[in-house]
């Protein structure tokens, strides 16, 4: 866990309204795990004042990548930064995904910008699975085909990729969960990894069936990013029945066992 200023290597638009930022951050790159996140200051003043959490999209050879949607005040400021500018980063933070054992049948499901952290996960799975990448299915969804981040790279890595697009421009017309539901029946999945907006996660919970282990990455507003402020609470089951407690997305997550979450 570091807090340092790192230099921007690249900060480019990859799909409309989304940018890929590459940071020269060796300490983070060598320790990062898929599903972990960075907590960034968007500028050096007090506007905006809070850091912003962004998943690690990929990390390799001293460099860390984030893929972000320009959503508001903070990400708009990030988008203005250029090669050579400095960003104040805390990371790597949080608990990431449990990697699969070779041989497990896996599905990776991403909705919209939710796909950001899955890329790093796929890289690691790729290393574990070697030539057996056909035991992994990747399902991504977006409003339209052009809005799916990183599709080409995922295919290049050798993973079978299916794309759901609301407008029919993908392999499936509808939501990524509808596509997943249709395909998953025949897959005898051992593990599912997912990331996306809350409605997608809820839909997935209904679609996934009892068998596979399911891990999802959760988003919540954050203050500290290190477990101190209790801003980022998410409801988790406590004991049997209706009981629940709050977990901290920043340190207990952001990746949680789907069945432990109260959605």
């Amino acid at each position, binding site marked *: *866990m570091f*807090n340092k200023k790192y230099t921007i290597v690249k900060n480019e638009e990859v799909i409309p309204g989304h940018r890929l930022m590459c940071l020269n951050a060796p300490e983070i790159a060598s320790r990062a795990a898929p599903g972990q996140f960075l907590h960034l*200051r968007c500028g050096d003043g*007090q*506007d*905006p*004042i*809070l*850091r912003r959490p962004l998943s690690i999209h990929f990390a390799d050879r001293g460099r860390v990548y984030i893929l972000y949607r320009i959503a508001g*005040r903070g990400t708009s400021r990030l988008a203005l930064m250029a090669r050579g500018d400095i960003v104040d980063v*805390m990371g790597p933070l949080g608990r990431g995904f449990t990697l699969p054992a070779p041989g497990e049948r896996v599905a990776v499901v991403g909705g919209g910008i939710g796909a950001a952290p899955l890329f790093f996960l796929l890289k690691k799975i790729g290393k574990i699975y070697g030539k057996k990448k056909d035991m992994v299915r990747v399902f991504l969804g977006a409003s339209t085909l052009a809005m799916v981040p990183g599709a080409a790279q995922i295919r290049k890595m050798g993973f079978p990729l299916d794309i759901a697009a609301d407008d029919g421009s993908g392999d499936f017309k509808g939501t990524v969960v509808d596509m997943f539901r249709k395909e998953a029946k025949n897959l005898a999945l051992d593990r599912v990894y997912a990331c996306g907006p809350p409605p997608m996660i809820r839909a997935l919970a209904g679609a996934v069936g009892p068998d596979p282990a399911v891990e999802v990455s959760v988003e*919540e*507003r*954050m*203050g*500290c*990013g*290190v*477990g*101190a*402020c*209790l*801003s*980022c*609470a*998410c409801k988790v089951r406590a004991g049997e029945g209706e009981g*629940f*407690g*709050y977990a901290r997305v920043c*340190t207990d997550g952001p990746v949680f066992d789907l069945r432990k979450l109260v959605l």
Partner: protein
Amino acid sequence: MNFAVNIGGIRMKNPVTTASGTFGYGREYAGFVDLNRLGAVVIKGVTLLPRPGNPTPRIAETPAGMLNSIGLENPGVEAVIEKHLPYLARFDVPVIVNIAGDTVDDYVKLASRLDKAPGVAGLEVNISCPNVKKGGLAFGSDPDTAAGVIREVRAATRLPLIAKLSPNVTDISAVAESVAGAGADAVSLINTLLGMVIDVNTGRPALASVMGGLSGPAVRPVAVRMVWQVYRAVNIPIIGMGGITCAEDALQFIMAGASAVAVGMASFVNPRATMEVLEGIEAYMRDNNVGDIKELIGIAHERS
């Protein structure tokens, strides 16, 4: 140079501490801050029984500040004594426990329980939390009720007592005088200002609990003013807080009359904020030939 201050019986090696609820139980920041270097650690507010806290969203960003409505999520006093105080006992730093209750009796029980717990240097009595339905803020809004809580707690413990005051009042000096009279050894201020943000896209309050507590640099001028007023009203030490991000901010509080300062949400932005405040105060004293931090406390009153 002498940085040591005594806050109503709590000996701090320097005037820099943490604002309750912004520094967890210390361990969350131990990767960034050498806890031994802090003047004291004030931990997250604790209640008798565990509390789940409020639904999310619990925070909203505001100009130069934030709203929070955590709702005093905490594992209850027994768990704090078992799990968190032993961890902090490893460090050479006084630990101040912030306590909150729904009734006067809650406060009394908390105080007598913590009186017997090892590793507690003092209690900060939170009579100013805006984020719980009952008690909290209500106790701190009225001088007499505030005094009532302090008087009962005073009877239940020999630990140094710091009354944490609410800024959501017409006359903070009156509340300060009242708790000083009731036996508080020190006061800390300010807790958060009650505030609210509406998300105009949904037409709904941005926080699940509608209102929350405003903190951060935005409130600093209000906090400095209140420290100034309270310094003139009471003779007990003041812990000043509200939007402190750097040494200059902290010095404003000290010059207004605070004997110690607490860093709050600034730690979220800069996890080393406490250390930078401390180092900056040291540098200021060096540059200005100030031999003892006490020489700076309240000096703005002489100069205005």
